[in-house]
């Protein structure tokens, strides 16, 4: 062992002194030869005879020098340098091959590796420790976004009565004015109950989270800021801690900055995080919405916890609210549901598929290249070269290509990744949010290295079986390729086509799903409608008062604009709201149905384009207790009779009687929730809840008109918060942000996979045709036609594509199963998508095979046979 170590160290030192050692070696041998020669001269030989005798006695000088260099251990340096130069020359002559491999590695292996690492990284780091014991407290078992909205009274109840089964934390949310130099005038403020940071194991990037001392009476207000707001407001300044932010008129000291991504579950994520110090009022249970999380104590199962939680509603509730809470007992929902695993899974699988396509591409191209150089390698081996030397050439070639690919990838991620990342997520604020962590770098290097190693191993295995005689045989055009080898190459090609089809199918289904979402019937006309939703901060004069005069004055400011054809005001219920069944209605059979009550003025029906099935819209005359029902509610309350003129009794005891004057088509509030029961009430019955103005436009909205309205409202009342001033159609965007994110990523993956498969098909077909030119010459000589040859080549390409299409369509079912939560009214098999993919694949095959087919058709039998 010691000898081996000494030897290795000595050879390493020799590497750095090789020129000196070389000189000394030559000098030593020269001196020895001189001494031998002198000896022979002294024995009586002539100088010439003595010289020859000395050389003979000494041995072959050139071979001895080589052996000495080998012993010094640096012969390989010179040899490697020569090989490197040869490889570079060889790659210069095969530029297309080099480009294809580099691009495969960059766009396939590199991008796919990063996509996979982001999702794996997000899964590994954003999933809290012990997440299997974490739950959200929801209201139903259905898979809809609103199921985990609870209320402040729920949290108080859970804290008081159920601490034996779990620990609870909660987050409330409100919109508040934020006075900062750079940044929006208002923001989403998340109020956290004590212990939230510890509960989710969140350590801020800078500073600290909220502590127990922050919740004490008289404590100075503090705030923790999210990552993107920190970038936007403070430009990512790490000295921002300690600065003051004015939130809702209160100075708050910045004590922490969160990390990128969403450290909290998405339903609890906001721009700023402050302590929750309020006390819920059982008399007004729906004032404070909360998201409640629970961690079960060891030994408590979800089943046991659910059974304990399904108890009586919170104490102190009013008559109106009690039926709601009785109908919606707390239920535990696994927190994984909000960790976007479906999005991450889709991106991860898409990335892995693209990576596999890239690896197959590199392997396929490597094999084609090896077969094209088969004769060259055979000649080298026959001239005394070893397989190790040939392998070294292959290693060098692949190593150079991998190095170029990694260098390009690093350049891309240094300068271009931010833009791509912002484009995929659709959030331009994330342009500066992309930081390459060491883990990502490892995955880039590792992914590229693995792809290259696979290609090297496959080539090396093939090289082991080279038969010199067959390879050197004149006229052997097979390039050493056996039938089994051809089948394997075809199998690689089919595998690539299959994976590309899977990716393209997933992308097509996602695109179809999104198209269906965008054209979903919401039960009203969303075009040319601008929605203004105002949030009144605490202490605002209109916070809890009759807001009709306020909105009338606002309308007076806006009425002169010719773009606006009509307006309505009412309670928010039209996107992006969610269906809150907080109004009890007594059904004819005496049961209580929870419905969404929505106060509206006399124009809302027309301005919103609600489709009236029967009767009329609300007149809104003071004192008239009338209502308009949605179809589903009318059918539920009056299944066998005409509801018009009938009475509906709302309230816990049915104390309010409303006369049905109209029935409208069911109205959808969100994309995925089923349409709920809704009744429209006259505005005068609850004027303190008015918060929405719908502006019906005379024509398509001109650019930046919504911004003008926004500024007009801010000019009218700087204290109010214009939470939404957007065309209703644009309000769909946040609801489909996850789907858009997945679609953009899959489009990128599918596009790259498509191009890679095309490149592989091109290279494979070109090589196959080239190696069979003699055969084509013979066929032509025996009576075949150029057209038949061209069709034969195209047919072979199409066969690969057909196999790929068939297998890919079957396998795509697996990927779409993973994406099932993201798809909307779309199954795993859609004929339109399959047809489009078949056409695209046929086009790619035609494009890739055309050149080779034309080449085959132009075979000259006389020239080919003469060359034979």
């Amino acid at each position, binding site marked *: 062992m010691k000898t081996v170590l000494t*030897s290795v160290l*000595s050879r390493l030192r020799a590497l750095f002194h090789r020129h000196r050692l070389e000189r000394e070696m030559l000098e*030593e041998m020269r001196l*020895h030869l001189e001494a*031998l020669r002198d000896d022979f001269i002294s024995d009586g030989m002539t100088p010439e005879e003595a010289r020859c005798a000395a050389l003979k006695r*000494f*041995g072959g*000088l050139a071979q001895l020098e080589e052996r000495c260099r080998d012993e010094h251990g640096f012969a390989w340096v010179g040899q490697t340098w020569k090989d490197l130069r040869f490889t570079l020359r060889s790659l210069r002559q095969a530029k297309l091959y080099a480009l294809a491999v580099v691009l495969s590695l960059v766009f396939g292996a590199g991008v796919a590796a990063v996509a996979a690492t982001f999702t794996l990284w997000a899964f590994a780091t954003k999933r809290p420790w012990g997440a299997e014991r974490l739950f959200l407290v929801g209201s139903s078992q259905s898979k809809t976004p609103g199921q985990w909205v609870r209320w402040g009274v729920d949290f108080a109840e859970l804290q008081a009565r159920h601490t034996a089964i779990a620990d609870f934390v909660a987050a409330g949310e409100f919109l508040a004015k934020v006075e900062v130099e750079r940044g929006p005038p208002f923001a989403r403020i998340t109020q956290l109950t004590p212990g939230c940071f510890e509960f989710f194991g969140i350590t801020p990037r800078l500073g600290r989270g909220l502590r127990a001392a922050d919740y004490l009476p008289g404590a100075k207000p503090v705030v923790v800021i999210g990552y993107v707001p920190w970038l936007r407001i403070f430009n990512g300044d790490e000295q921002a801690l300690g600065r003051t932010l004015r939130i809702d008129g209160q100075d708050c000291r910045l004590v922490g900055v969160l990390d990128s991504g969403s450290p909290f579950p998405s339903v609890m994520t906001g721009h700023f995080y402050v302590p929750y110090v309020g006390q819920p009022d059982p008399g007004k249970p729906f004032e404070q919405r909360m998201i409640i999380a629970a961690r079960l104590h060891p030994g408590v199962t979800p089943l046991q916890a659910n059974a304990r939680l399904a108890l009586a509603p919170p104490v102190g509730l009013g008559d109106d609210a009690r039926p709601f809470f009785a109908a919606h007992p707390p239920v535990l929902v696994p927190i994984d549901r909000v960790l976007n695993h479906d999005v991450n899974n889709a991106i991860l699988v898409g990335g892995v598929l693209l990576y596999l396509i890239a690896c197959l591409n590199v392997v396929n191209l490597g094999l084609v290249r090896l077969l094209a150089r088969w004769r060259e390698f055979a000649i080298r081996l026959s001239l005394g070269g070893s397989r190790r030397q040939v392998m070294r050439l292959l290693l060098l070639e692949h190593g150079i290509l991998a190095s170029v690919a990694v260098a390009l990838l690093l350049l891309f991620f240094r300068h271009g990744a931010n833009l791509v990342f912002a484009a995929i997520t659709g959030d331009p604020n994330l342009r500066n949010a992309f930081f390459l962590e060491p883990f990502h770098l490892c995955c880039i290097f590792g992914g590229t290295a693995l792809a290259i190693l696979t290609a090297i191993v496959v080539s090396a295995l093939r090289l082991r079986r080279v038969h010199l005689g067959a390879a050197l045989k004149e006229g052997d055009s097979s390039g050493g390729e056996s039938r089994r080898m051809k089948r394997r190459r075809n199998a690689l090609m089919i595998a690539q086509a299959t994976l590309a089809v899977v990716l393209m199918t997933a992308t097509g289904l996602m695109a179809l799903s999104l198209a269906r979402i965008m054209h979903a019937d919401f039960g009203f006309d969303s075009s040319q409608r601008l929605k203004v939703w105002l949030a009144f901060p605490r202490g605002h004069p209109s916070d809890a008062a009759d807001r009709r005069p306020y909105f009338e004055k606002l309308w007076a400011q806006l009425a002169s604009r010719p773009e606006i054809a009509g307006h309505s005001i009412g309670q928010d219920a039209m996107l992006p709201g969610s269906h809150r069944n907080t109004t009890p209605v007594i059904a004819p059979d005496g049961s209580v149905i929870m419905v969404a009550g929505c106060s509206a003025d006399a124009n809302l029906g027309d301005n919103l384009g609600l489709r009236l099935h029967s009767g009329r819209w609300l007149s809104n005359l003071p004192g008239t207790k009338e209502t308009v029902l949605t179809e589903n509610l009318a059918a539920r309350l009056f299944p066998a009779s005409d509801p018009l003129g009938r009475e509906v009794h709302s309230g816990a005891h049915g104390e309010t009687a409303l006369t049905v004057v109209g029935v409208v088509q069911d109205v959808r509030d969100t994309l995925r929730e089923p349409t709920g029961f809704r009744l429209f009430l006259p505005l005068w019955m609850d004027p303190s809840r008015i918060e929405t103005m719908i502006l019906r436009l005379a024509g398509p909205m001109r650019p930046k008109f919504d911004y003008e309205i926004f500024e007009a409202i801010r000019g009218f009342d700087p204290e109010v918060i214009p939470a939404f001033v957007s065309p209703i159609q644009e309000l769909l965007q946040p609801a489909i942000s996850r789907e858009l994110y997945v679609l953009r990523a899959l489009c990128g993956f599918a596009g790259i996979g498509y191009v890679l498969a095309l490149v592989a098909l091109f290279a494979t077909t070109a090589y196959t045709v080239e190696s069979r030119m003699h055969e084509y010459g013979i066929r032509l000589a025996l009576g075949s036609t150029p057209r038949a040859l061209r069709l034969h080549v195209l047919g072979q390409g199409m066969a690969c594509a057909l196999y790929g299409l068939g297998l890919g369509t079957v396998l795509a079912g697996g990927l779409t199963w993973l994406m099932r939560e993201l798809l909307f009214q779309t199954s795993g098999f859609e004929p339109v998508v399959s047809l489009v993919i078949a056409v695209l694949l046929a086009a790619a095959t035609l494009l890739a095979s055309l050149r080779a087919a034309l080449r085959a058709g132009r075979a000259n039998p006389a020239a080919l046979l003469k060359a034979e």
Partner: protein
Amino acid sequence: MPKLDLLQGTLDMLVLQVLSGGPMHGWGIAQRLQLLSKNTLQVEEGSMYPAMYRMEHKGWITAEWGVSENNRKAKFYQLTAEGRKQLTAETKDWNRLCLAIRDVMAGAS
């Protein structure tokens, strides 16, 4: 009598044995080998150098430039402690081999 080729693997041992007598240059080692073997062993003199460089890397010998008895520049090789141990080990193995061969030859006759 015709010269005999060196048995494979014995050159190192012979060189170490020669150097056990004191530092010597390559030409001197070749001369000494010839002398001690009474011209029986046929050695390509140049083939010692790869062996000596190998042994130098293994730490069995060290080398230093000096001036020979003929006032010529020469590289002198010297045995190290490790080299002495190696020589002892190889000598022991060689003696065992000789005994074994002798026993076989004696038993066969």
